């Protein structure tokens, strides 16, 4: 892989016209204008057809798939136009990273929405029976994205531990009697948790991976934003990752975010099926320019990733995805140069946003990504790669 390779992490916001189509209401004038404007700006082939479709009123249910694909195409073009080396489609064809997975998996039932942060909520499901894959649920999306993308692809999929952690368990651990001895309840919880997580890894994630690889996927990112939720379960995170990928022929990476990353060590020393860790750091960093440790407090932990025995690549998060602040290229450059200095090997550094950019507008996401690419170019020139 190219030194200082740039890619995105996963999600982009859904355009208003895409959201409206699924709400079965007509696109607003602003939505139509957005479709036209971004279509021209990103040079999306045939975008006038989408504009016409949107102008006709609510999109009929039978044409929703077209809307999903348009949305996917726009996102691919946005990421390519920003100059990224590796792209996907901003997860435009999925409802959401968790909901999409559980909606296509046997054994889950929706329970309602719960708060994630600020006033953002997500829809949470419960495991109500043995989990199994209904049918691979990223194949259609991958086939489409591959047919339209001009650059290399990395497929993000939600990992087993995160799916399990973000779900209620009403099947593997069904007891509610709090008068039982604590040691007994804890032992039951550990056993149930392991059964659930490894069940998802083996019965849901692995067959999805096999199917994607069969279709030609070469790089698959297994997202585990929930990985550090229970610090005493990090061995289980690693075990589930390895169980998902062991023996499969592709490049596998993972994405971690918004955690105390120190917690991951030494547990992830066993995660030797992982070729790259894509990790958010900018959220914790200062906006001051500079390549010294005191100017880069958000990146203090990266030496631990450097020292992992299987020498993975680190995808360094350089864009704060929870802020509209547009990181100047110089700030990206300095964050990258700091990481290169710590690793002493630019081939082991990739550059990414902290996480998916779905909480930002497309304008903000686009500017951030363009500046990220510009900053990486500055860093490449500075170190001569």
């Amino acid at each position: 892989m190219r030194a200082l390779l740039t890619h995105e992490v996963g999600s982009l916001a859904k355009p208003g016209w895409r959201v409206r189509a699924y709400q079965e209401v007509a696109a607003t004038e602003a939505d139509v204008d957005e479709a036209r404007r971004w279509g021209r700006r990103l040079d999306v082939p045939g975008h006038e057809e989408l504009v016409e479709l949107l102008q006709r009123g609510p999109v009929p249910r039978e044409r929703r798939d077209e809307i999903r694909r348009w949305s996917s195409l726009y996102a691919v073009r946005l990421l390519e136009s920003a100059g990224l080396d590796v792209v996907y489609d901003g997860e435009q064809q999925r409802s959401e990273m968790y909901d999409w997975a559980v909606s296509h998996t046997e054994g889950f039932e929706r329970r309602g929405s719960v708060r994630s942060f600020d006033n953002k909520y997500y829809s949470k499901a419960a495991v109500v029976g043995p989990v199994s894959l209904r049918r691979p649920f990223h194949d259609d999306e991958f086939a489409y994205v591959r047919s339209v993308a001009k650059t290399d692809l990395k497929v993000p999929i939600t990992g087993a531990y995160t799916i399990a952690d973000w779900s209620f368990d009403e099947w593997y651990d069904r007891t509610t009697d709090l008068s039982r001895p604590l040691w007994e309840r804890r032992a039951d919880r550990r056993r149930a948790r392991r059964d659930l997580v490894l069940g998802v890894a083996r019965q849901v994630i692995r067959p999805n991976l096999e199917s994607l690889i069969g279709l030609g996927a070469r790089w698959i990112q297994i997202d585990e934003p929930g990985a550090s939720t229970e610090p005493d379960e990090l061995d289980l995170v690693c075990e589930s990752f390895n169980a998902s990928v062991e023996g499969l022929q592709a490049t596998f990476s993972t994405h971690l975010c918004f955690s105390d990353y120190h917690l991951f060590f030494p547990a992830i020393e066993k995660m030797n099926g992982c070729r790259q860790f894509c990790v958010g750091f900018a959220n914790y960093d200062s906006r001051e320019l500079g390549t010294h440790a005191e100017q880069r407090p958000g990146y203090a932990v990266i030496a631990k990733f450097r020292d992992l025995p299987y020498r993975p690549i680190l995808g360094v998060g350089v864009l704060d995805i929870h802020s509209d602040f547009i990181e100047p290229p110089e700030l990206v450059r300095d964050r990258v140069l700091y990481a290169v200095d710590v690793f002493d090997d630019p081939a082991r550094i990739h550059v990414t946003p902290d996480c998916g950019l779905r909480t930002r507008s497309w304008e903000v996401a686009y500017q951030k990504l363009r500046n990220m690419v510009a900053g990486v170019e500055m860093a490449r020139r500075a170190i001569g790669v």
Partner: protein
Amino acid sequence: MDRAFAQDLSDLVELQRRARLDYYWDGLLRWQDLFRPLVDANPSLQAGGLARWFDNNAFYRTPQLVGRLEPSDGLPLPGQELPRPWVATLPSPYLFSRAIETDGDPNQLMEEVTELLLAPAARSAAAAGAAVVHLQEPWIGFHGIEPEDWPSFEAALRTLANGLEARLVLHVAYGDAAPYLDRLRRLPVDAIGVDLVETDYRSLGGEWTLGLVAGCVDARRSLVESVDETAELLRQVAEVARPPALFAVPNSELAFLPAPIAARKVTVVAEAAGRLREEVA
């Protein structure tokens, strides 16, 4: 947005009224996290990056201290629009001081946070009719507390309790309170809350002189406990601890459950407590 919040609060009050709870609470519906309104009201604090809320798929914005801590410009009054008697929920001084990003001495910061933020907020709440000030303390449950921190923590609670015209409750959640109960039971508060999902009731010890707030249903699981088993748990707690007052509550905040499930848990708590009360009567 205001109408939506008002409707949610109205529904929450109605739920509590139907369940015949003894105290109303507002669910902190307008609070983005347990610190934010306090942070926003203080010129020397700002909301920083997201950090995980203990072992939950939920995040709060890390309070960041800019310069020296100053008094607040105006304090949020959680729950003042509720029917009386109502409970005001605030972060515990220990939790708050550990959550703030600072290079300074956290115990010194705890004293300042208590004096400048929490004590005025608690007094304002009491003046507005709060009968109970409920301090959430998941830090000790989850991370523990260093032995040398107890004196500062006790001093902070004393500052909070001083002249407060409301009952003061410290609720330890997200962990086993047993290793700390000896000290917790000597704190200058009116009652100690215990998370009975993570704490074995057998470890509570007997002859409590403080009130005991029993976290008797799991606010992080969707399976709803039965009234029978919850009442039995409370019965066991009462027999073991023999506290002068026993309160029944969920083991932690209910924000991690979809509203209909949370409502069922509230009802279970109320019915189980009601059953026990009938037995005692």
